């Protein structure tokens, strides 16, 4: 009996025998992180931030590097100097990017190793035909690409429904594209619904159809509204494809014990991030040019509310106010007044002077002021023209901000 008791005791000890301690990691030398996505005819905008080492406390925001020297030069062209507009956002409206041209970026800041990168802005996506078959049960879109045979080409496809504010999930029907599409998606063993579920955007390389006329077939069971949805087909640079693919895989693999960690595929020599470009073909009412014209203008703050740790708040009755002007050259100006938690009945003023980007129907703001709007993305309501932004609920705070024209 005594022996049995000893065994039980030892087994009980074993049940909780693992221990966890914090260990030191090697000091990290911060690097410059450059994010420059360029598009023909759009102003130059580059975000320059720095890496935050493991062990360092930093916000879930870009740690802006405001004093960098950022230049871009086209092959055979003159140098374009980008100016800091706030929040690490560097901007220039000079000679605009052109499809097919090669551009070289250099960035340097005190205390960091200089970085450089090059990219070729792809020629327009070679869409030769587009067809949409709509039934009450399903929409099928066919996009025919005349893929060049001399180069390795990369594409990105997605559908945005301006009326619904959300991307439209769809399925790629072409079986020859399945391997590369599946490789983009982290699998789940016991979720049968996930196998072959619709995707919100796909990245493709032309391996299965290089140099041919290829028809990409999309299907969506819950049909999109043909009147408000726009199909985007982008020809993207290889750097864009690799970077976006790796980021997506890394996000899916994060903290998963059975998935190999994924390194972000940066083309920034000496640093991190991506300098890449794309040209966009669209079918639908909201082409990038139309969207760009639509978002330019002046807005005033109409809502600022949400929840923090499950406690709701609303700043508008407390006097929150603001104006925001988005200029055609990619700059932004404005002012935001918010209640000061340290001094009741007092409003704090924040400058919204900086810049913005418009990608995939999303407006993203950059400025120096430490506000929730910094790095926030806004969607434009096609009916009212209002810009609605918010922080995701998974951040423990859920903030909704609305600017009305």
């Amino acid at each position, binding site marked *: 009996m005594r022996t049995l008791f000893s065994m*039980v005791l030892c*087994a009980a000890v074993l049940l909780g*025998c693992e221990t966890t301690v914090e260990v030191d990691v*090697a000091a990290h030398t911060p690097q410059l992180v450059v*994010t420059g996505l360029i598009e023909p005819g759009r102003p130059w905008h580059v975000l320059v*931030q720095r890496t935050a080492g493991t062990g360092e406390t930093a916000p*879930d925001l870009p740690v802006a590097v405001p004093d960098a020297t950022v230049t871009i030069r086209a092959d055979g062209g003159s140098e374009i100097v980008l100016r800091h507009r706030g929040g690490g956002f560097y901007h220039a409206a000079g000679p605009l990017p052109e499809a097919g041209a090669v551009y070289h970026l250099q960035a340097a800041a005190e205390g960091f190793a200089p970085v450089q990168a090059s990219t070729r802005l792809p020629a327009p996506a070679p869409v030769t035909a587009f067809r949409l078959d709509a039934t009450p049960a399903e929409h099928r879109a066919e996009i025919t690409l005349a893929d060049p045979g001399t180069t390795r080409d990369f594409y990105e496809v997605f559908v945005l429904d301006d009326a619904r504010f959300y991307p439209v999930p769809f399925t790629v029907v072409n079986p020859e594209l399945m391997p590369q599409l599946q490789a983009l998606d982290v699998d789940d*063993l016991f979720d049968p619904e996930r196998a072959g579920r619709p995707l919100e955007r796909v990245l493709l390389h032309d391996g299965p159809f290089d140099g041919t006329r290829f028809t990409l077939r999309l299907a969506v069971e819950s049909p999109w509204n043909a009147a408000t949805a726009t199909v985007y087909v982008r020809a993207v640079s290889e750097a864009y494809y690799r970077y976006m693919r790796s980021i997506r895989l890394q996000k899916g693999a994060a903290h998963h014990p*059975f998935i190999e960690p994924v390194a972000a595929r940066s083309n920034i020599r000496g640093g991190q991030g991506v300098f890449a470009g794309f040209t966009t073909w669209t079918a639908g009412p909201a082409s990038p040019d139309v969207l760009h014209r639509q978002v330019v203008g002046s807005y005033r703050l109409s809502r600022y509310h949400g929840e923090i740790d499950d406690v709701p708040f609303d700043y508008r009755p407390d006097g929150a106010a603001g104006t925001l002007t988005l200029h055609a050259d990619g700059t932004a100006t404005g002012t935001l007044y918010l209640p000061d938690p340290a001094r009741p009945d007092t409003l704090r003023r924040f400058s919204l002077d900086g810049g913005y980007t418009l990608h995939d129907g999303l407006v993203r703001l950059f400025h120096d002021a430490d506000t929730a709007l910094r790095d926030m993305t806004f969607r434009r309501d096609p009916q009212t023209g209002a810009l609605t932004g918010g922080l995701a609920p998974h951040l423990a705070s859920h903030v909704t901000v609305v600017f009305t024209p």
Partner: protein
Amino acid sequence: MDLRLYRRRIPSALLLLIAALAWPARAQERATPPPAPGPYTAGGYVTDAETGEVLIGAHVAAAHRPVGTTTNAYGFFSLTLPADTTTLHVSYVGYRSRTVVLYRRPDAPLRIELTPIAAALDTLEVTADGVPLEDEVQMSRLDVDIADVQTLPVLLGEADLLKTIQLLPGIQSGTEGSSGLYVRGGGPDQNLMLLDGAPVYNAAHLFGFFSTFNTDALSNVEVYKGGFPARYGGRLSSVLDVQMRDGNLKRFEGRGAVGLIASRLTVEGPLRRGRSSFIVSARRTYLDLITRPLQAARSPGDGYAGYYFYDFNAKANALASPRDRVFLSVYAGHDRFYLVEPDDETDTADRFGFGWRNATATLRWNRIVTPRLFARAMLLFSRFHYEVEDRQETRYTFAGQAVRERTRARLHSGIRDWTARVDVDYLPHPAHDVRFGASVTRHRFTPGVRIFHEERAETVRDSTLGRQENEDALAAFVYAEDAITLSPRLSARLGVHVSGFGVDGRVYAAAEPRLAARLLLPGRWALKASYVATRQYLHLLTNSGIGLPTDLWVPSTARIRPEAAWQAAAGLARRFADGRYEASIEGFYKPMRGVLAYTEGAATLGLHRGWEEQVMVGRGRAYGVELFLQKQTGRTTGWIGYTLSWSTRRFPDLNGGRPFPYRYDRRHDVAVVLTRRLRINTLSVAWVYGTGQAITLPAARYADAGTLVDVYDGHNGHRMRAYHRLDVSVHTPRRGGRARVTLSVYNLYNRQNPLFLYVDDHADFDPQTGYHDRRRSVRQVSLFPVIPSLSYSFTF
């Protein structure tokens, strides 16, 4: 080549070879002339006088002549003797040496019995009288004494073969407590583990903390790290050749042990005294039985989890004639983890479980065709299978009717082999020891099938996702080698292993040279060198490194070519102090190509889709130096092993195409093992040290469009803390030596060795920005603190 032809011809060729073996045997029997003056050949078995079991590696030599040999893996020897030789000297470690007088030239196989020293003398010392290290051509081979395995300190009271092997130089362990082997920079799939000749595909129990080899059922273990003899093939890095015991031919006996988490029992004895015998051995853990009441007491109604494994070994053998012996051995093992979670509120029960099974079987026929020719024919079976299953059942009442809903998800995968094999040892001349043979194996792979079954209301839905047809492959090889004594100082072994693999209409073939030489230098130093080429047609997909059953065996395909390597090794060896000490130093260099790794982001649990899309092919390189000092005799025995090594991998799409450290690249690896036989007790101590494991950890991060991007400082660019621990055990005899109590202490000084590291995020909400201030830290999880254990073993 047409695969169908290939499949037809190889078995036919094998049958022809068997027939050819039998024919010259009969021919030679008929044609053997009457004994005539001149050299003659004596052959036979060396056996244990108490049990009748054969002794492997016993030294047989002409008395006072420089002519000798050792018994092979089946206890057989063949020795060509000078005409005037009338006495043989036979010796074996742990046995009393014996001189055998040949009154006449033997016309039948000899059967020489040696008496164990423990039975012959009440001695505290172990003596050695085997083959001098410097006389062997073979290098990079280590013999593991089962007695050592049962004497060294253990984890949780369970003696473990693979954990003892991990203490040898050039062989490294994986993570804390794991029984995985990493040999000379190779991967866990590059080890050929044979149990009575049948491959064991997953040698892990309890997530790798224990191995499948029950030491009570084993007789002999050889480990080859390089210089592979031509008879072995199919793996790049090592061979672990384990033989089960044959069973006592003379009397019934049994042995058993009761440990902290498992007990085992072995029974053996003659079926027909002196002619046939059997051995049956079984082991089962009972951790689940012990902990279930504890779980129930701690959280009543919350369900329970459990884990158990069992294994079963059995073997029978019969002497059909003085020249023929037949063996049948089987092994079966099963691991199972289960978790049952009932929910009384919703009347739901969730049952999750996974498990894996290994099974092997060997039917072998040994025949002494002539004293110069020993042949074996084997039929082998091996199977590894795992499954993961999740079942949910919900009961409720709807509209006055009882409703039951059930869902079941199941993933299973496995590999199954059938092999026919023939081996021949032939001594045509005293200076030549020729071996040749052939083998053909039919593999069946089940790469991964997911099955879903759902019953809701009156709807039943069955679906099978990602079903891939069973993949069949045919593997075959022929080999030949000759160990040549060129002079008393120079000997060599020349061999070739020619292998082929047919799968999916494609055939791969390769000739793998196996060369080794030994030169005796002045001062009894032996200079040894070897060169071997190896080819591996099976791949193990794994990234856990902790022996999870989800590790997946897959064949080479048209796209994924076989792995290939060559290894060159050179070293010095000699004995000192009248053979009490052995010392060796070996250097090795091993480049590998065709090694596999998961692509970044690949999920090991999601391999229902084509696995070929989720792996990448690269190269590897390993090199290093190993030092080994061993004392085999006296009251104190043991060894010191040290390995200085480098192991890297290189993949085009990983780490920017630059080489990076292999996960188990271990710059320094040290093991000190000592056993001291005291007057009553036996004390064993083992201390190990290893450079920290290389892992991939994020060194920094940045924010990009609402997500945090991790920045890595290279693949496997971070090192865990160094691993070291001290284990001690004391064995106390009881019941006049028929029982033994063993107290073991694992990790005596309570070193917190890393099992794995993870990044921990501490997020503090900033009400001003609406975002979080995030601090990241790296945390280390350690598994085993100091763990005492007690076990009781007995014989009857």
